[in-house]
């Protein structure tokens, strides 16, 4: 097992360097000069322009800049934002919990709703439930979520007035950040109603973000279940007169879960991409919105470190999925 983990880690080293190369190069290829963007309509004199460029370290040889970047990375220094002048890592870490919270709740919704639907649809194959739920899943899978989010806002916040339009918690409540996760912090604060308010604010964005993963998981669970239900050992168990619930619960579901776990792991990238859109629509203070803003402001250090950190996270999650997969399915390990 240890050798398996080690080999997977070694496998990631070249990929990681590839990622640093990409994250370093890409922001520098962006058109638009950050110095000019800061000056706006006002303009900036050529001398001042040179001065500022030097101050931002953008005048050095590109190779020197790259090794500077790598060197500082290993010291945990991700550079300072050109806009706020603050360390990028600390900015990322302040915003990251908001995205994680949203993403976790979304994936939880997707699993808790998607898996049962998939299982039920497989068992009752061809029934109206199967047809309706799978059609709905396909619609969900095809959904432009940025539009879906707007529709939900129009209906639930606008017409019905049930849900808040944006934000993570009602401004009525104020407590210090302990973990950065509003669900936990609001509980710790002990303020009455704070937790409920957090949940209330999370509903729409997490439903929007959960839409596509939910559809994918439901479809994947159904087809995995169907496959397993057709296998010999399930038929045998059935033939032996084992109660249907046990057959499904013990044998079929466990085996069907293997591909489903992979699917869930693969949804992390989908979630991060979805977070960009969802956070933009709901003014959610997370890293998705932050990346978009950083790109449009040509904030090199933020774009480069943000990309790096997000790719790193995807890589780590994929590794974890790989390892879990290895645990569930020992055949792969060899």
């Amino acid at each position, binding site marked *: 097992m240890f050798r398996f983990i080690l080999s997977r880690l070694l496998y990631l080293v070249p*990929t990681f360097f*590839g990622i640093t190369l990409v994250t370093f190069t890409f922001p520098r290829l962006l058109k638009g000069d950050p110095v000019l963007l800061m000056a706006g309509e006002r303009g900036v004199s050529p001398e001042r322009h040179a001065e500022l460029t030097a101050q931002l370290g953008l005048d050095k040889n590109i190779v020197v800049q790259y090794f500077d970047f790598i060197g500082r990375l290993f010291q945990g220094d991700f550079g300072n934002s050109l806009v706020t002048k603050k360390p990028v890592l600390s900015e990322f870490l302040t915003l990251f919990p908001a995205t994680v919270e949203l993403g976790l709740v979304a994936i939880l919704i997707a699993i808790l709703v998607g898996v049962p639907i998939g299982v039920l649809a497989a068992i009752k194959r061809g029934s109206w439930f199967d047809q309706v739920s799978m059609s709905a899943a396909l619609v969900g899978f*095809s959904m432009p979520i*940025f539009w879906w989010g707007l529709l939900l806002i129009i209906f639930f916040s606008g017409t019905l007035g049930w849900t808040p339009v944006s934000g993570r918690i009602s401004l009525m409540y104020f407590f210090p950040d302990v973990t950065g996760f509003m669900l936990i912090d609001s509980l710790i604060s002990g303020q009455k109603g704070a937790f409920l308010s957090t949940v209330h604010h999370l509903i729409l964005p997490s439903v929007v973000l959960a839409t596509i993963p939910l559809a994918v998981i439901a479809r994947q669970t159904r087809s995995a279940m169907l496959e397993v239900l057709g296998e010999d050992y399930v038929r045998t168990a059935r033939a032996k007169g084992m109660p249907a619930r046990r057959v499904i619960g013990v044998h079929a579901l466990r085996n069907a879960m293997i591909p489903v776990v992979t699917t869930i792991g693969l949804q992390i990238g989908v979630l991060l*991409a979805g977070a960009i859109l969802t956070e933009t629509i709901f003014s959610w203070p997370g890293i998705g919105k932050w990346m978009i803003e950083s790109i449009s402001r040509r904030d090199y250090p933020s*774009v480069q470190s943000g*990309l790096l950190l997000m790719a790193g996270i995807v*890589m780590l999650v994929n590794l974890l999925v790989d390892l879990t997969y290895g645990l569930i399915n020992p055949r792969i390990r060899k």
Partner: protein
Amino acid sequence: MSDTTVKLTDAQIRRRMLAEFWFYFSRNRGAVIGLCVFVTLVLMAIFADLIVPHDPTLQYRGMEKLPPVWEAGGNPDFWLGTDAVGRDMLSRLIKGSQYSMFIGVVVVSIALLGGVVIGLVAGFFGGWVDVLIMRVMDVILAFPSLLLALVLVAILGPGLTNAMIAIAIVYQPHFARLTRAAVMSELKRDYVSAARVSGAGNIRLMFRTILPNCLGPLIVQATLSFSSAVLDAAALGFLGMGARPPAAEWGTMLAEAREFILSHWWIVTFPGLAILISVLAINLMGDGLRDALDPKLKRS
């Protein structure tokens, strides 16, 4: 056994395969509906300039933000109402199908072509070529696709062409991986060694012998990519990085309409609906294709 089978010509085999494919495909009601919608969309795109009731870029002064015809204040000249500067919504939606179909075709072609060539090379030659290519693909896949596309567009400059290129780059590793895996498994088969023995060259072997045998999964992946491309291009347009206004691209229309979300619902609703319907149709078709082309599922 072999002497009982009748010798079939290539054309006959092809016809028979097609017939078999259509048999399975047409059994899937959703797939047929999807196909119909898709064909309608394609026809709409091709004949867009002939069937639009108005010039999609013409601004009718004094006709701004008219509601659809069935709402109070609607104008029978503009069935689905007009947008912020008085352009006909219906005409813009029809014109938008042209963009979406175009985006899908171009993105899938680039990604497919690039991915297949890369995958064939990697799978066929193996060794360090394979390792290098696959590491590069890993790097691309490590980024959330929309984010990478966003950065690429920001580099290339916003615009439809660049958005398509960016999306194609982000998609092609999927094709490359698929092709490579197929090539690796096909290489072990007897017919390949047979072709080799009979002196077929590398290129011929790659394209004439191996490629046709891994077409199935590629077609399914291509359909999936088509719908994702339409969706991602719209998302880029929505974030202001896709097609530039006044192009009637659906995502761009949606982005421009965002300020009217609470005041003029139709300007926001219709472009999104158009995206949903076309993506749904393609996905329905994709499901049918997968079922018809995947022999394992055929049995069940």
